[in-house]
């Protein structure tokens, strides 16, 4: 698996910075960009899957029982799932809290 970008030295880069390991963007922790994180209230969730469809980063997993889980490694905290959820089952809280 590719190294994280802040660990790579200039000598380790391929000529022309060619990426010869397809899909290694999966290593990149876009979750670091987040200033707010989603908090999920399972009691209000009706398992409609709308949040899963709208999440632009595929950072929402649908579990075997139909409920969901945020993948905070990738979640950028955009809040689209909060906006789209028909039952207000997701809210955003500041990362500092």
């Amino acid at each position, binding site marked *: 698996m590719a190294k994280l970008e*802040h660990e790579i030295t*200039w000598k380790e*880069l391929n*000529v*022309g910075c*060619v*990426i*010869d390991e*397809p899909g290694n963007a999966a290593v990149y922790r876009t979750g670091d960009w987040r200033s707010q994180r989603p908090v999920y209230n399972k009691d209000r969730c009706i398992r409609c899957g709308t949040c899963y469809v709208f999440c632009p980063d595929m950072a929402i997993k649908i579990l075997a029982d139909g409920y969901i889980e945020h993948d905070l490694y990738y979640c950028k905290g955009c809040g689209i799932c909060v906006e789209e959820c028909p039952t207000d089952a997701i809210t955003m809280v500041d990362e500092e809290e």
Partner: protein
Amino acid sequence: MATRVGMEVSIAAAEAIKQANVDVVAAYPITPQTHIVEHLAEVVNNGELDAEFIPVESEHSAMSVCTGSSAAGARSFTCTSSQGLALMSEIVYITASLRLPILMLLANRSLSGPLSIWNDHSDVMSVRDCGWIQVFVENGQEVYDHVFIGYRVAEDRNVLLPYMVNLDGFILTHVIEPVEFLDQEIVDRYLSPYHPLYTLHPDHPVTMGAFAMPALYTETKKAQAEALTEAMPYILKGWQEFGDLTGRYYHPVETYKTEDAKVVLVTQGSLSETASIAIDSLRGAGEPVGLVKIRLWRPFPFEEFSEAVAGADLLVVMDRAISYGGPGGPLAGEIRSALYAQEKHPRVVNFIAGIAGRDVAPEDFVQMIHQAKERPGEWYELYGVRE
């Protein structure tokens, strides 16, 4: 046996591209580069060269096509001048960062405005820091030779950088000169087919030109800067081996009568031949003058340059471009940097001359040398400007 023929330099350049067995030509005609592209179109159309000739709609597209074709493993060629280079400059930087061994002939012409089609070096100096290997040539033979040398060096696995050959517009492109052609067998011995390190192929998918975040960008630039600096020995090797095959040896810094010279003229490109006439006449009058020609502009040959001017008290540097609001011309600025670390270094006087095709005759070089000797200090001026 090599044959020597009289031929317009642009045609000879196109014939060299044919002999280099280029796979893709993408170019947009612009004065004074036009004859090169026109002749290549004929060569491809006549079936003399098995290449894709892509008549693009702009220079930005020309360099973009070459980037794609080179990435796919094709030996790729383009050429342009002045505004064409300015338009393609966005992609010029990218090809270097992608380490694609494209060859470009740049028929040097002044940048607008005012609009001018004539020759100076303001176009190449606008992309000085683009990361390409940049070479200046002096006559038609050197243009022809540097096509083969360019691909040989650029495609070397230890180099993998694009190669730009600067030839003065009109002064070279439109002049008929004697050019000694190489037998194809010699060309093929010197220049093997291109085998790219990475290619775009569905069986081995790669990403070229990816995004780099601040955490990585500095490392990418360090790698690129090192690649150009570390290319030097392989450039020298390519030039040496060309000399061994043809008898024509090229050097990053070339000298003419510099032994014991106290005053040294520094030039680039075709006016170097004119300058050598001035040196002859001053030598005839007993003045200890010499000439240093900077052939390799990037990577800059700091060591070779310092050695070449080691005995001089005064350098008279002729630039053919202006760095507005800066220290004069870009060549003189570079030379001062090259000398700064030396304990004792020669005085540097800078003339900006031959802009937009204004003639520079041997007497003008004599004048520059005399003015520089008479007026103390380090200064620059536009030679011959009407006050």
